[in-house]
């Protein structure tokens, strides 16, 4: 048991209250660091409590309702976050009801999904929320039984006093507990006492999913709701010139056709305000099919954009001027322009020792270039959002990963204070980074404002796939130097891409393990928009680096696993440079566990390995391929994970399995190309996705966790990047050909 001081962030607990009909409601600011919430906390009036959305409610019947603050898109937080609260509250999971909390920027901070961060930043506040309620219930019992609070124990939602034999359910004392002052300190359970964490309760909305309940943004139905779609330019580098709506306005079911402007010209973009096509034609009608047909008939003229700049507050780089060139882009140009950049010196991000000398004196130099193509997100649910905007208020509802951030852009654009805007989060039919952005939420709001009616904006698959905000084209050039004893003496990585470099953290492995180390980056302006994509940047750096290390190990004549372990030993005993951006013990830990669990492999099995630290979690993987009827086939993937304390083992396994399948699919087939600014792929007939029957889909996947008492980290992303390298390394063993350029299918033949 640990005593956790709540003193510092005590004011972050808004207060407890009796719920209508009796029971306890406990509210608290999502993260204690939310300063604005703290200030407001002291003067919440009783009337505001009526609509108060808090962390947890305990009814007189003993039912516990836990609000999950973060948006759910398949990563499992809707189950995992309440498990943490229930654990510390000490209740039976079967009496817990989980509800998605609405967006409330005052009540919760960091109400968003991304960077595998929901659990990482939620761990402590959620534990404290549960522990605080438990403490108040114990106090209430102590007062009503006239016994010292220290003697009141709990078990599965029941309070006990041993010597007097008294007991009461949480429900019976919930109303009394509501009047207990929020305690200054709370006890948190010791890891060994966890009873819910470490078990695998099923997805809390599993039944709704398998029965087709309307959980998603696309499924929203509201009274008098219209359907809206947008028409955006067919190519990047184009904008709207004019349109003729007359023939469309008379089509059946069509109500209105007009232009919207997502942001005003002088607006400074925040990180997630990226918009590809600022001027759009909106078509509003009665039904999706009618609006889709009208879209086809609309006469629109497009024109080329001018070169211009956009001011943006980048999350990492701060205020930036983005140059948007007007030239229509081709995939060939992305390739040649990247090659030119790679031939020139880049921005030096890290330098240890004297790499130039080391390369000059090397006995052997290994050099390779890796390419990652543009990728579209292809969430199975295309973008959609419901909006009802009036002069006084706005109600929005739909799937968004970062409602707590994007609502500010909406407020700015509508000229309406955030307090007047209500945003309800729906389940997201896949998120993968693309739903972090605000634009289609704003589009829906502007359309509703124009037609003065509730509207559901829906994107077609084509609108979605050709709408920008992609994982950009990346390139990485690696060099490694070995001395005559095959020791790695120098390592050089230079990586860049369109709009951004995938290399922003130069302190990751193998930095710290090599005496002479150089990391450089570059980037090229583009008019194609980019954005977060599952495991941003590491989704490329992992495959490049881990494939390259395999090549270096081979050149050095060392087993690839031993090669990595030797380098990590160096980091542990005598690291090079001042900064090492990973825990060498934990990275070595997953590799050693992999060695143990994957075994040595059998004859005829070609194994590729990979190990990577990304988004807080350490992962190592071994992918086994056999050749069947002349074709490579994936037998098993063994994956070891160190994500700290494992909250929901089966839920995390599902995440890892999905990431592995997705990673294999993306590495093999993911590819968006351009001709004169037009994406060459716009639906699943041209953009290939991994499917059943694909021989590279693993027959079996085993996941093993490192036992740990370290605070938990997330699992939605970390198993995705390294599998692409494990695949490349296994295919190399099977076919004798190194794969440097994705999609691999192009080189495999």
């Amino acid at each position, binding site marked *: 048991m640990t005593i956790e001081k709540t003193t510092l962030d005590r004011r972050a607990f808004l207060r407890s209250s009796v719920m209508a009909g009796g029971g306890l409601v406990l509210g608290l600011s999502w993260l204690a660091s939310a300063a604005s919430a703290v200030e407001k906390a002291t003067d919440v009036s009783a009337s505001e409590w009526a609509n108060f959305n808090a962390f947890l409610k305990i009814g007189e019947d003993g039912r516990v309702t836990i609000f999950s603050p973060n948006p759910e898109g*398949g990563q499992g937080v809707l189950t995992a976050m309440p498990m943490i609260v229930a654990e510390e509250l000490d209740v039976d999971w079967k009496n817990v009801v989980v509800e998605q909390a609405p967006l409330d920027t005052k009540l919760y901070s960091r109400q968003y999904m991304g960077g595998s961060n929901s659990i990482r930043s939620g761990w402590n506040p959620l534990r404290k929320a549960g522990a605080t309620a438990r403490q108040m219930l114990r106090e209430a019992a102590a007062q009503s039984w006239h016994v010292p609070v220290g003697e009141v124990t709990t078990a599965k939602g029941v309070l006990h006093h041993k010597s007097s034999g008294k007991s009461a359910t949480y429900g019976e004392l919930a109303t009394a507990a509501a009047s207990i002052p929020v305690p200054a300190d709370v006890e948190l359970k010791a890891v060994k006492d966890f009873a819910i964490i470490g078990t695998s309760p099923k997805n809390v909305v*599993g039944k709704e999913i*398998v029965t087709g*309940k309307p959980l*998603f943004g696309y499924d929203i139905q509201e009274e008098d709701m219209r359907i809206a779609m947008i028409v955006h330019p067919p190519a990047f580098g184009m904008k709207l010139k004019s349109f003729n709506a007359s023939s469309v306005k008379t089509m059946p079911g069509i109500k209105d056709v007009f232009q919207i402007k997502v942001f005003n010209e002088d607006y400074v973009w925040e990180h997630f305000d990226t918009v590809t096509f600022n001027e759009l034609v909106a078509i509003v009608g009665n039904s999706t099919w009618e609006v889709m047909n009208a879209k086809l008939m609309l006469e629109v003229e497009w024109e080329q954009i001018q070169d211009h700049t956009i001011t943006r507050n980048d999350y990492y780089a701060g205020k930036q001027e983005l140059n948007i060139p007007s030239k229509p882009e081709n995939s060939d140009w992305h390739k040649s322009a990247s090659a030119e950049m790679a031939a020139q010196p880049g921005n030096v991000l890290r330098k240890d020792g004297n790499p130039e000398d080391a390369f000059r004196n090397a006995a052997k130099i290994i050099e390779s270039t890796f390419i990652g193509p543009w990728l579209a997100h292809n*969430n199975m649910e295309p973008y959609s959002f419901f909006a009802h905007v009036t002069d006084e208020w706005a109600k929005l509802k739909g799937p968004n990963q970062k409602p707590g951030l994007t609502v500010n852009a909406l407020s700015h654009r509508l000229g309406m204070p955030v307090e007047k805007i209500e945003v309800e989060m729906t*389940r997201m*039919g896949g998120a993968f980074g693309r739903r972090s952005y605000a634009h289609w939420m704003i589009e829906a709001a502007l359309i509703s404002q124009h037609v003065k009616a509730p509207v559901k904006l829906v994107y077609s698959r084509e609108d979605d796939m050709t709408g920008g905000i992609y994982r950009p084209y990346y390139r990485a050039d690696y060099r490694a130097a070995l001395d005559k004893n095959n020791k790695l003496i120098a390592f050089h990585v230079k990586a860049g891409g369109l709009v951004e470099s995938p290399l922003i953290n130069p302190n990751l492995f193998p930095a710290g393990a090599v005496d002479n180390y150089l990391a450089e980056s570059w980037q090229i302006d583009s008019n194609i928009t980019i954005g977060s994509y599952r495991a941003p940047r590491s989704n490329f750096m992992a495959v490049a680096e881990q494939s390259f290390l395999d090549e270096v190990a081979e050149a050095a004549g060392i087993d690839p696993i031993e090669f990595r372990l030797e380098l990590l030993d160096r980091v542990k005993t005598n690291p090079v440079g001042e900064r090492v951006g990973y825990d060498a013990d934990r990275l070595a830990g997953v590799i050693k566990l992999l060695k143990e669990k994957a075994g040595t492999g059998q004859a005829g099995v070609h194994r590729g390995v990979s190990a990577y630290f990304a988004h807080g979690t350490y992962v190592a993987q071994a992918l086994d391929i056999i050749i069947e009827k002349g074709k490579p086939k994936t037998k098993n993937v063994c994956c070891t994970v160190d994500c700290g304390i494992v909250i929901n083992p089966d839920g995390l396994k599902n995440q890892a399995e999905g990431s592995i399948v*997705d990673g294999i699919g993306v590495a093999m087939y993911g590819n968006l190309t351009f001709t004169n600014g037009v994406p060459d792929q716009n639906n699943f007939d041209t953009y290939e996705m991994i499917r*059943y029957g694909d021989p590279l889909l693993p027959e079996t996947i085993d996941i093993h966790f490192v036992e740990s008492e370290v605070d938990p980290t997330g699992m939605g992303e970390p198993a995705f990047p390294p599998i692409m390298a494990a695949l490349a390394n296994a295919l190399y063993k099977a076919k004798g050909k190194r794969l440097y350029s994705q999609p691999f299918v192009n080189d495999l033949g």
Partner: protein
Amino acid sequence: MAIFKLKINGKQYQVDVDPSTPVLWVLRDHLKMMGTKYGCGVAQCGACTIHLDGEAVRSCITFVDSVGDQEITTIEGLSENGDHPVQEAWLEHDVAQCGYCQPGQIMSAAALLNSNPHPGDEEIETAMSGNICRCGTYTRIKQAIKTAANS
């Protein structure tokens, strides 16, 4: 516009729509049955899978005027209480991640088991190859189909 009488999940419905409207949008927009999903509109993803007289079809390219008196089954009508063996197997294996593709996956799997109660691996792969899952739940889906086949 024209009037169509449709038999869906054992009940009669009547809609007044353009004859070229895909059944997908009749279900979703006109009858407010949201279980059948839109993912591509061109028969490439399987999210819109329904049964026509027990056989899996893509409702996004099935026009309402082609249905006639064939009986439509959607995910809402697959079972009364969500307890069809395929649905139960899905829950047992906790298949879903985001869940968006799953109604379509379940409808494809249920149709397969209707016609072939004990499919082999290859038969499962062929029957299911039209259903995409971006979340990558294929391995669990296969296990769930096997569980359902044995129940």
